[in-house]
């Protein structure tokens, strides 16, 4: 188990509770503390030279690794590729590595964020999780990818899709920023922000403008039990496949309980995310150009500085309007406000 991104006190509490190997916990805690001390020392040095430390880029060593669960459920599994290693013989390993690389670089270069915790955390991925497993998820400390059974997802498609990988890593970013509770509207916002950056990072990789992009999550990954083009469509929510129930307007908001029943999707988090997804699409196409410029920076600013654990759709609308106004001015704020009005949130 790799817990480098967890705070030191949690690592040590886990070791004390017997949930983590003591030596591993201490090594991780020392590494985390060392990183903080290096940052403090560099800041002091920069200040002693009469420079503004806030303007100095901090040195973070990008650190990605991909493990193989060998079709079992133990995480992280066997190390197959580290940061300095060349491509591995296993395509799934390289897919997970390359897409994590694209995502890490996007957050660093476009948004100035260093990994999920903004403190250079290792990006750990595991592929070949269980047998024919139809899922990918952010585990809390790492990404996990099943191979897919061919029924819901094509075999080998999950780690190979940039939007899926960026979606999962963004769940990690959400956890370290607003911490949106995974239930009902706040959970749908959690899902939507993961979809937004999944699509934006795919567009950034392909160098597409908002008008050129397909705005699809998981294009071409569906297995034989689903008929459609993708998992979700931000441009036309509810049209991606035959079981896609996503609404694009508050008039069609699907009210479901969050009662732990697997039929209810934590209160419709993967359903009602279609509404904020559509709002972002309208903003990106309304502003025009590349979605990773003003639109993504507005959405990221709102996530990192304004949204809170229990934020609702209205809060997200207010937050993104405020971020747009502060970062770019009234014209962009007006486009954001109009988008949320068009989907019935404002």
């Amino acid at each position: 188990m790799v817990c480098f991104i967890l705070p030191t006190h949690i690592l040590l509490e886990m070791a004390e509770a017997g949930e983590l190997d003591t030596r591993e916990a201490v090594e991780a805690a020392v590494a985390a503390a060392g990183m903080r001390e290096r940052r403090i020392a560099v800041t002091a040095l920069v200040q002693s030279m009469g420079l503004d430390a806030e303007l100095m880029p901090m040195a973070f060593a990008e650190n990605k690794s991909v493990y193989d669960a060998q079709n079992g459920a133990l995480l992280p599994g066997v190390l197959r590729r580290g940061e300095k290693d060349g491509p591995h013989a296993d395509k799934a390993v390289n897919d997970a590595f390359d897409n994590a690389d694209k995502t890490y670089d996007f957050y660093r270069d476009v948004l100035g964020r260093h990994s999920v915790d903004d403190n250079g955390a290792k990006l750990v991925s595991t592929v070949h999780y269980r047998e024919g497993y139809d899922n990918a998820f952010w585990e809390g400390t790492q990404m996990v990818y099943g191979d897919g059974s061919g029924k819901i997802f094509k075999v080998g498609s999950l780690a190979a899709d940039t939007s899926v990988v960026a979606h999962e890593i963004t769940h990690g970013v959400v956890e370290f920023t607003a911490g949106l509770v995974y239930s009902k509207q706040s959970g749908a916002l959690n899902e939507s922000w993961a979809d937004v950056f999944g699509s934006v990072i795919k567009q950034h990789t392909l160098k597409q403008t908002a008008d050129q992009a397909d705005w699809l999550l998981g294009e071409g990954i569906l297995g034989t039990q689903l008929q459609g083009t993708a998992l979700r469509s931000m441009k036309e929510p509810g049209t991606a496949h035959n079981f896609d129930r996503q609404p694009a307007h508050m008039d069609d908001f699907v009210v479901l309980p969050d009662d732990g029943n697997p039929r209810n999707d934590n209160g419709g988090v993967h359903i009602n995310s279609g509404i904020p997804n559509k709002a972002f699409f309208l903003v990106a196409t309304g502003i025009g150009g590349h979605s990773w410029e003003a639109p993504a920076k507005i959405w990221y600013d709102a996530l990192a500085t304004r949204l809170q654990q229990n934020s609702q759709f209205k809060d997200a609308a207010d937050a993104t309007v405020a971020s747009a106004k502060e970062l770019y001015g009234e014209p962009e704020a007006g486009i954001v406000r109009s988008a949320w009005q068009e989907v019935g949130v404002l």
Partner: protein
Amino acid sequence: MTVVRGGGLAGLVSSTAVDTSALASADAEALRARVRMASLTDAGAPRPDREIVEILIEDDAGAVTTLVNADDLAPGVRELIEWVESAPGRTEHFGPPGIGPA
């Protein structure tokens, strides 16, 4: 006995049911043995894209429903779910959340 999976990256719902009365006696006894061995645990707080599994057992004594996190299963529970999802004569349904499947 029915296993219902929901959530995950797709947010969809799948259901697999096995009617023990349609099974050979050896298979039916295997099911009962797995139910007895399973140490069912709580699903815990909701987390992004994690699958939740409901295990519904109906017999002469009534119905029992249990929720578990698909990625945090005790070995006996995992074995039970895998057995149902590969049992001969099983029926499978698939659909969106809220309205289906069973």
